[in-house]
């Protein structure tokens, strides 16, 4: 992941936000979506993605569905009810963080 130290703390929130918007997604789809949105600037590696997905699943924030697609099985992740509520909290925290960073890095642009 590019600038991994800066993005690391936000990875779970990024995943939850994507799942909130798209309903259900599979691992490879998440990496491609992030790559497309950031125009290749941010690339989530499998080494970062799966531990994050499994951690969110263990915390009860994500649920899984398995479907047969083409000639293989595919595991979809989706937010649980708790996960949906938690996404709102985490996004609000992330927005506060971005605002604070903006104030520190470039006070002129800060609202």
């Amino acid at each position, binding site marked *: 992941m590019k600038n991994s130290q800066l993005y690391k703390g936000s990875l779970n929130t990024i995943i939850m936000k994507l799942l909130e918007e798209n309903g259900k997604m599979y691992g490879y789809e998440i990496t491609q979506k992030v790559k497309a949105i950031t125009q290749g600037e941010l690339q989530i590696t*499998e*080494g970062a993605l799966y531990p994050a997905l499994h951690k969110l699943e263990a915390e009860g924030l994500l649920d899984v569905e398995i479907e047969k697609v083409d*000639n*293989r099985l595919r595991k979809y992740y989706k937010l649980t009810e708790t996960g949906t509520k938690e996404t709102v909290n985490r996004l609000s925290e992330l927005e506060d963080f971005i605002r604070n960073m903006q104030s520190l890095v470039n006070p002129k642009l800060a609202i």
Partner: protein
Amino acid sequence: MKLTTQQIAEIDETLVLNGLIYDDIKLEVTDHIASEIETKMEESNILFDDALYQVLLNWNEQMKPSLYNFWIRRKSFRGPRIVVDKCVSYYKSTFFISSLVPIPFAVISILCFHLFNQEIAIRIFRNSIRILYLLEVLLISLGWILIWNSKAKTTFSYYFKKSSYLVYVMPLAVGLGFWPNKLMEEDFAIQSIFTYFLIVMALFFVANIMLIINHLKTIEKLKLS
């Protein structure tokens, strides 16, 4: 370009050879690798074998044999890093909950012993524990049978096999008298610690039951798909 069943089977076989034998993780890694290969074959116009080689290079780190010693050092998680990481994340969340949640329950229980008629409160608590012990041993033994009978391997069954033996410790230790029952202990500290561990073991039991349920749910989802 969609991969053939034979090509998917080749990916699957490669993963098994690398120690990835747990269905819940193997299926998503297979799908991820297959999707990456399809993209590579389309974008770079290369053959399946070349694309597979290139993609597997990216997965090397996740496939590396890994080891994590937990709680009692004789027990550990071993396997590809992606499997060990999943077990560790489940272990950490379980350990955190079963270590902290019992504290207020232990305090409330001990307050009940002291506020109400001590002997009656302790007798009720002791009888509840006996029933719970019996249930624990029965349900965990049933879990072993169900997991064995499912003939499938998931990270949940792997974790269960590593941790469920601890559920037998407390009933056996107290039941056989190796660990004296300290509920009637006059020393407040000893009584508190004993009560705390009783509740820790109860939560630990619940965590193991969840592992059995998650394993069976995964198998059910696999069968339905």
